[in-house]
């Protein structure tokens, strides 16, 4: 199996250490970090070239993380971001992909996304 380079950024040290423990045992995962999120720069991101970013977050104080995620998505639109927090037992995944700006692609995209009337 092809290895995945996962950059682990930490707002919650014990959570990030837990994630590092779990992922450290997985053969096909090449873990980079953990690094403290507030000290991490987009320049470092360019140097590390991860396949994805995993953020161990503090859900009560998300402003800094949200800004950082927004910057990643702006400068590295094809880089998936995964957030794990302690307040909710879910993993949130942000991905984006680009399509040609044609009406057919736009309409297909709209139809392919789920309707909220049927839950999401």
């Amino acid at each position, binding site marked *: 199996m092809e290895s995945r380079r996962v950059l682990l950024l930490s707002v*919650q*040290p014990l*959570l990030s*250490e*837990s994630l590092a423990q779990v992922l450290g045992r997985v053969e096909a995962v090449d873990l980079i970090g953990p690094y403290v999120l507030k000290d991490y720069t987009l320049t470092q991101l360019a140097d590390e070239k991860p396949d994805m970013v995993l953020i161990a977050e503090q859900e009560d104080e998300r402003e800094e993380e949200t800004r950082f995620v927004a910057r990643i998505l702006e400068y590295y639109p094809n880089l998936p971001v995964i957030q794990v927090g*302690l307040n909710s*037992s879910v993993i949130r995944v942000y991905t984006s992909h680009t399509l040609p700006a044609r009406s057919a692609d736009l309409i297909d995209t709209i139809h392919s996304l789920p309707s909220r009337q049927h839950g999401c």
Partner: protein
Amino acid sequence: MNSIERIRVLLADDHALFREGLVGIISAQPGMEVVGEASDGLEALVKARELAPDLILMDIGMPGCDGLEATRYIKRELPAVVIVILTVHDEEEKLFEAIKNGAQGYLLKNIRSHTMLELVWGAVHGEAAITPILAGHMLEEFRRLSRMAPLDSGEDVVALTSREQEVLGLVAAGASDKKIADALFISRHTVKSHMRNILAKLHVNSRREAARYIRHKGGPGLTDTAH
């Protein structure tokens, strides 16, 4: 207390991924082993009875029976088990309730694993697993309690202000500090300040006791004479 050679640990936390990582962190310690896991308070009680661990690391926010209640039940049945709360809740009331229920420590999940391990090791050997900041809150609370008259001394309860009554009404309805702050357009800091005053005036130790007291007295109907 006799020295324990290998600490047998039960982990109680509903966050499966975090719990799995914690198993790895603890299992890597030569003097510790994880003997069981639970994802809610009742399961923690069942597993504690079955496994008789030396130490339980107990989350608070779990479905059904939360960690504070589970601590009380477990300590009642198995007084020798050491319970250390490990939580995201940096709230004085939860800290005080945990200690009253028999917890040997209260740790926030924003600490590093090596600090956590040092403190829980100490807890198993009779020390308090608590950071200096939370210890400071405890000292403040003891000072406050020492200034309070006992409830059965016949001393009158000082009347609550209208704002305090509003806060207490929301507390009795189960609202968190954040929900109260949002509902009343005040800061969480102000909510905590009101709660401290309410607890002092009602001569109770926790929001749960305050809510129970007011329900028993028939609603926050104390007239507004104080401010």
